[in-house]
């Protein structure tokens, strides 16, 4: 469903991605990990065209992301994205955060959007907070609202950009639980994360990146048991100690 071929990207003269290729099938869950600054976030931001790229191509459900003729907003509406810092709209109530994009982008009626929004808030266990403002919720709750907001668009795939790294430790689990449930329901997901427990539990494949390159792209079990590259071994030994 998502195909990345020979992706290359520069920020001015600095090369940030080099010849990255991978693909994600329908219903597949792929975890992208690697040291910070390795280009993981940049890679998934290229998938929905939030970051432009100079080399290679990406196609999502047959639509080419880099093609200037592609209607990017239309494509993005079909791909959900969850950010490290939640990025809920602080001036809107929780329910408005969920209904606004449905109404403005999918042209759903206000009632229909609200109905859908409430169902999703219930699903992430936050129905009671519908009329609060994002600033009144904890980080974990905000991130769950952000996931619900993305799901309200009925996406064909979800991108997660370090969804738990800005959270206090005791709130990480509640967000991971929602993500695990989503993965088990068959959602196509690309997840940038350091949560190796999550990767072990639900990921079909793990992509390991370092210095802008995809160093390893292996089925989850293989990655943890016998990583091929020295760099991946080193990374795992550091991250699995705690």
């Amino acid at each position, binding site marked *: 469903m998502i195909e990345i071929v020979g992706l290359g990207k520069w920020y001015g003269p600095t090369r940030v991605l080099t010849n990255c290729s991978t693909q994600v099938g329908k219903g597949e869950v792929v975890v992208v990990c690697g040291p910070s600054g390795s280009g993981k976030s940049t890679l998934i*931001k290229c998938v*929905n065209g*939030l970051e432009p790229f100079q080399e290679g191509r990406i196609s999502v459900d047959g639509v080419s992301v880099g093609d200037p003729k592609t209607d990017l*907003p*239309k*494509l*993005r*509406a*079909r*791909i*959900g*994205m969850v*950010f490290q*810092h939640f*990025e*809920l*709209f*602080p*001036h809107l109530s929780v329910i408005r955060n969920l209904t*606004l*994009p449905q109404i*403005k*982008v*999918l042209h759903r009626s206000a009632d229909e959007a609200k109905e859908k929004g409430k169902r999703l808030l219930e699903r992430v266990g936050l129905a009671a907070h519908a009329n609060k*403002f*994002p*600033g*009144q919720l904890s980080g974990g709750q905000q991130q769950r609202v*952000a996931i619900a*907001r*993305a799901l309200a*668009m009925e996406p064909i795939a979800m991108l997660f950009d370090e969804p738990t790294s800005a959270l206090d430790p005791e709130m990480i689990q509640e967000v991971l639980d929602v993500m695990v449930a989503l993965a088990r329901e068959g959602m196509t997901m690309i997840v940038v994360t350091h949560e190796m427990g999550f990767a072990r539990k639900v990921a079909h494949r793990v992509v390991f990146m370092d210095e802008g390159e995809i160093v390893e792209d292996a089925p989850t079990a293989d990655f943890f048991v016998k990583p091929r590259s020295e760099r991946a071994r080193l990374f795992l030994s550091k991250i699995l100690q705690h």
Partner: protein
Amino acid sequence: MFSNFDFDVIIRSLPYLFYQGMTFTLLLTALATLGGIILGTLLALMRLSGFALLTVPAAAYVNLMRSVPFVLMIFWFYFLVPYIGQWVTFSPRPMQVGAFASCLVTFTLFEAAFFCEIMRAGIQSISRGQVAAAQALGMTYPTVMSYVVLPQAFRNMVPVLLTQTIVLFQDTSLVYVISVTDFLGAASKVAQRDGRLVEMYLFAALVYFVISLAASGAVGLLRRHIAIIR
């Protein structure tokens, strides 16, 4: 020292001062603020658009407006607006523009430059993550701006915008250069007719002072009320 002052002149001229003068002053302030914020926001969006075709004219406009004495602008527009009107409407004669309309155009255009810079700061205060999140949901540029960025930018900037409005309120007195009867103009006329310059100017100063001070206080209260919960 006030023994030979006649404060009764103030009481006698109150209806004229407020009904004619203050109405003009407040109406001009309100409409120029409204127009200035709308035009200023458009200019700010132009300046931040990243297209030279839009950024250069907007920047040039703002810099021009901020480098010319305001009184000169008022003069200039008073004589120029009828001809611009003629040019825009293809009429054979210069358009008949009242003093109020002329002032309104001048103040709106002038204040827009200041509101532009305020709104630009406001828009820049919204994190790129907010824009990215809105785009990731499939929103187009106009939707991102009108429902996500501008409402937040505007709320962040309301105190500054209103403070600028208070400055504008005081600046409206500059319309005296084209002999328009605003509040100060009205006071001035009474002062000269009755030879009560000190009393009238003292009173006018007091009125401007009280209104500006009260408005500043109100802005301070408002600031606490409208802050976005984070």
